């Protein structure tokens, strides 16, 4: 078996890989969705009155921050069925994607809770006070005045966290998910491990383009939403 570099393998594999982005997107998308919800709950705990809830949420975030994605992924993959076993549940036949989504939901929630907390706390308390002083209720003040401003502050970091989830998601192949990376490995195996480099380059190109597109999208979004925040001096 001879090893040599042949760029045509890059271009030929890209169309084979693209359809599997669907799985990549689905896993990342659902993780972002559930992670944002869980992250919101964590943020409420972190900014709330209960000291216990605050400690718990902060501790959770620290632990997740210190855990490599691949370790969390395998902990979930082996750990959940083991725990299920304890309660007489058979979780061994669950779709791999579920474990992946759980893993990255846990991770994204921790990241988002920090993003949302710092965005929320960056909004001057005077904004809330002015809102209630003109007769808005507390929840109206949050909904109409504080959150919209915090949202704009959070947007860039939300984008970064989303990119991170997309990239960390590339590890899902290790537990057998057939997303783009999984497919790439299948192609390589099909080639008897020849031309692996070209396939990996194809993968890199796909991820790179995706990341740039998402980054640009969030930059645009920021511009749209930051009206009034920074005097976008429309000359």
């Amino acid at each position: 078996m001879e090893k040599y570099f042949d760029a045509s393998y890059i271009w030929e594999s890209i169309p084979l890989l693209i359809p599997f982005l669907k799985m990549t997107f689905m896993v990342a998308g659902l993780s972002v969705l559930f992670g944002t919800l869980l992250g919101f709950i964590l943020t409420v705990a972190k900014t709330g009155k209960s000291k216990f809830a605050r400690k718990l949420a902060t501790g959770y975030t620290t632990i997740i921050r210190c855990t490599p994605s691949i370790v969390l992924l395998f902990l979930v993959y082996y750990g959940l069925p083991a725990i299920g076993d304890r309660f007489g549940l058979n979780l061994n036949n669950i779709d791999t994607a579920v474990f992946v989504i759980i893993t990255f939901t846990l991770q994204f929630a921790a990241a988002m809770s920090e993003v949302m907390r710092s965005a929320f706390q960056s909004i001057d308390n005077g904004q809330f006070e002015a809102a209630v002083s003109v007769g808005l209720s507390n929840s109206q003040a949050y909904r109409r005045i504080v959150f919209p401003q915090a949202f704009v502050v959070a947007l860039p970091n939300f984008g970064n966290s989303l990119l991170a989830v997309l990239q960390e998601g590339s590890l899902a192949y290790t537990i057998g998910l057939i997303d783009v990376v999984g497919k790439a490995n299948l192609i390589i195996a099909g080639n008897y491990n020849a031309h692996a480099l070209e396939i990996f380059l194809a993968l890199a190109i796909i991820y790179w383009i995706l990341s740039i597109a998402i980054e640009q999208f969030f930059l645009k979004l920021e511009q749209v939403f930051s009206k009034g925040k920074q005097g976008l001096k429309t000359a």
Partner: protein
Amino acid sequence: MSEGLNYKFLVDTFFIALSGVPITLFITVVALLFALPLGFLLALTRINRIPVLHRFAQVYVSFVRGTPIIIQIFIVYSSVPLLLSSLFTKFNIGMNVYDVNPIWYAFIVFSFNTTAVLIEVFRSALSTVNRGQLEAAQSVGLTDVQAYRRIIIPQALVVAMPNICTATVNLIKATSLGYAMSLQEITLKAKVAANVGYNYVEAYIDIFLVYLLLCSAVEYAFKLYEKRLSKYKPSVV
């Protein structure tokens, strides 16, 4: 039926995982030693818009930020041996590429990756140091180099420190991907131990604990250091 955790294995493997810490730290330190100065210099090329170099730095950062580390590892691990073996044949070096210690690949990948991360860290830190600081330094007769060494860099470092901490923790975590290069670090060591009796849950709990200890310790060390540095922070009026 469930048998619960194998506690003996849990304890034994914890120490096996722990024995992977030195190699993880070794790679981390080497990558940082390489990436800190290089990242700083390339950040300067970005800030001062040095032709060619600043474009290069921009594309480089974009690539590293835009692609998963595992794919960067795949690429290095499958391209460097190709290069080496053609070099070995060309110069008639009697060495097999498969004898190369994987730690060399790890040095390459993680230095490559961390440099790009630190370019961005330094770039944003440098741009927060007030332009007036440089002008003030020049006005009292410092050369540009002196101004940077004595005024700008100390301030930028304070701003950058939390992000350098994050980069370091991320680097340590990323070494867990060393398995893809057969690197004998924390994760692989514990996993191999688990292969015998399928004690994967225990093994990953151990790995998890070791990273938790390691990263918390690093974060704590950075906090202490930041406290000492904070006297350089710009005064708030």
